């Protein structure tokens, strides 16, 4: 079941790519692991950087949600600042996932999160606080990290 659906979504995304995203398969043979290169959206502190994301689709997809993680370090309240770089997306939680959600929606959501972090739903409390209370400092840090880690 998973294969067909994934293949379909992949070919759709290849045909009609999302803006500012490049999707590829690290291993041609494994449709379940996707690599996504996402440009920092204009107007966000991540502008100018390019971020590598990893999307992992479980074998039970679409009945179980995929997981999304940042391979590129990013200063963001909703991305864990560890080697996993897990992104916290509400729609990817097991109890909120809908089999009808498609990967392009997941990716669009991730991109929207770059433009507008959701500090109330944060995994990095410190960054979230800074985002809420001292936006300037947050932007400065995020920009610095983008420059340092997400160089083109």
């Amino acid at each position: 079941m998973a294969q067909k659906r994934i293949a379909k979504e992949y070919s759709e995304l290849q045909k009609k790519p999302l803006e500012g995203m490049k999707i590829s398969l690290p291993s041609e043979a494994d449709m379940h692991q996707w690599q996504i290169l996402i440009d920092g959206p204009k107007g966000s502190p991540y502008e100018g950087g390019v971020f590598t994301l990893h999307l992992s689709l479980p074998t039970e997809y679409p009945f179980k949600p995929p997981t999304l993680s940042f391979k590129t370090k990013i200063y963001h309240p909703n991305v864990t600042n560890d080697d996993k770089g897990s992104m916290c997306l509400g729609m990817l939680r097991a109890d909120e996932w809908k089999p009808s959600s498609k990967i392009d929606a997941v990716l669009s959501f991730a991109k929207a999160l770059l433009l507008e972090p959701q500090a109330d739903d944060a995994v990095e409390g410190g960054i979230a606080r800074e985002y809420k209370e001292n936006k300037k400092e947050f932007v400065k840090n995020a920009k610095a990290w983008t420059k340092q880690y997400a160089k083109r």
Partner: protein
Amino acid sequence: MASTTITPVSTQVGPGTDGGNGPRPPHQNNLNTYRGGRGGARGAGPRGGRRGGDNQSYRSDGRPNQRARRRSNHAGQPVAPIVPPPPPDLGGGGSFGNRLTKDAENVEGDRSGKQREEGGQTGTEEDVEAEVCFICASPVVHNSVAPCNHRTCHICALRLRALYKTRACAHCRTEARFVIFTDDATKRYEDFVDADFQQVDEMLGIKYEQREIYDDTVLLLRYNCPEHDCDVACSNWPALHHHVRREHNNKVMCDLCTKNKKVFTHEHELFTVQELRKHQKFGDDNPGAVDQSGFKGHPECGFCRERFYGDDELYTHCRDKHEKCHICDRRNPGRQQQYYVNYDSLEQHFRQDHFLCDDRECLDKKFVVFESEMDLKAHQLESHPNGLSKDARRDARRVDISTFDYRAPHQDNRGGRRERDGRGRGRGRDPNIEPLPQSTAQPMRRDELAYQRQMAIQSAQSVTARTFGGQLTSTNPHAARPNSGNQSTVTVPRHDTTTNTSTPAIENLNLNAIDDAPAAVPALTPQEQARRLQHAAVMDRASTMLKHDQTKVSDFRSQVSSYRTSAISASQLIDSFFSLFDVSSADLGKLVKELADIYENEAKRNGLLKAWNDWRAINEDYPSLPGSSSVLPGSSAAAAGTGGNRVLRLKNSTAQSSRSAVSKQGSWGNVSATPLPSMPAASANRAGAGRVGPTPWVGPSSSSRPSPTPSRPASTAPVAGKANATAADAFPALPAAAKPNTLIFGLTRGTVRWDDPRSGGNPMNPWGNANGSSSSGTATPSAPSVGVDAEPELGKKKGNKNKKQTLYKFG
């Protein structure tokens, strides 16, 4: 969705959208105009023709149909619906199998490509979706319509209901008691009336509009042999295993997959024994194959050498059967999960790296361990004051300020530690005054103590509102428990060990009484109250198992009460449980037994238990396919007759998934960092666990590599509740009396204290010491410290002291 394309029948589109009639010459159009109009209304021409017309597969008829449309458009021939539809040619019935076959054989790309091409012409995206299930991207054979009017193919709907046990809509998560399986691609849910349904399955919550859909559905739920061209369906799992082994060259199925993987029976895989080993160990990685699944094998518990379906299952196992150090976990929440094989091994770790209360009573109680020496002292003053001499008590109250260190918290731990080691020697207590009572001084090396203290202070600074007094009162509830009558004999072991021997028994009794208390209460109280309690317990368990899903809980209630009123039989009740609960049969068994206890009617109780045992006898602990057992008999005529051919077609149509769907839980992410718990000394300790041997606590290898230890049934690992008894069993042969106190005093006092911490470690461990003196030599106990040493140091960075109460967080 398709309703957007509704077109007046009299327009030119009408005849064109008539499906299934494409190949017919245009002049026949008028015969089909009415249906053509209907087809148009459905928006998906191909589907419109499904039942009418020739034996053509509706999937393949998309193309001719579209051609027909174009042709008639050219003809520009408006047709009015005069002629009522002929009684359906009933090709559907006769050619049913045919249709399925074609479905399966059709190349999907061909069709959908065509469809897309045509999509531009009709201008509706829906055309594509009406044909291909949005969820699984496979061609829709039958529709499933939910009350929210969202549609999936019947296979996806069945998968969710029967395998995932959820009644939520795949599109919007709306829960629905019933969905409708129909071949009508556009009819709305509310437009169906009861008379439309040929079959209703209460258990799965499916209403079937056509008998054949019902048959197709039941087919999926049988225990079909996974072999591609075998049409055998068995009556249960064991029979299927047997069949596979006997008929298909000794092939086997993966036990873990069959028990956990949410796929239909025929979608499982057959392995040779070697393949199975590879499958379990490494997954089905098959470089270059098109059907890579990303499955990496079933993880194994390093202690028990037992494999589990996925990381979640392994995690559950480790949580239930093995031990974790709550102190280390609290200090460093982000670290890798680390387990100890059982409490003995964990206790060893407590001794080594934390402050374990050495009191016999506390040892029996388990988990009386502290993060800092100060906390331990506080505990001892409070709980075992009589064990200490006056001097010692005074001493214990004294906080040794001299070793406090107000260094900033961000200092490098390792470096800092070393420095302190050096300084520690010159500072601190005068070695000539009376040593601290062992109970306080023993469990830690001097330098460790100093280090602990410092950490305690640091954490006190970072954690707000932590005061010494608060610490004392909040140590833990057990500390505050008044000592029982044997106070005078309950002492720190090394002070008064001889009188100690009687206490364990007493203590065990006490604890057992406490353990039994909840069960005993109902017996003591009036019957009614007892019944209510049981009721509450059952409902509690049920709703926990249903994850507090209200609809399911009320389902559960109604099923139970209909059994009470004899509306359904016991086996029906059991079946309904299986469609309701998504838990292992062991858990379900507990519930059934508790439930049975409630029934006052002897017959009802026995009936339920018997039905449960019957079911279990047949299916062991495999997942049941809800409905398969109960539905089959009714449908057997239909299913048995055509089943053979159909099931093969079915396999074709889901072939893709059967090859690919090797499963991995979606939620692996949570624990994916810990494919295997690393267990340094713990695994090693296992060998000596619970036995008094020459090397009681010493791991053959203290490295973090899980050492191959003799496996034993995991169930015997002590779990908190019954642990008391086992602990007593585990340590029976160590009469504290045998301990040469003088030796210990000597060691602690003179040589050890300022000595190399390594060798100083020895005397701390009363067990180790006892053994050492009796048999193989004192060198052994120190060995584990080498292995475990590094890790806790890292862990000590952050102490979160004010969570003392969570000491008993277990199970």
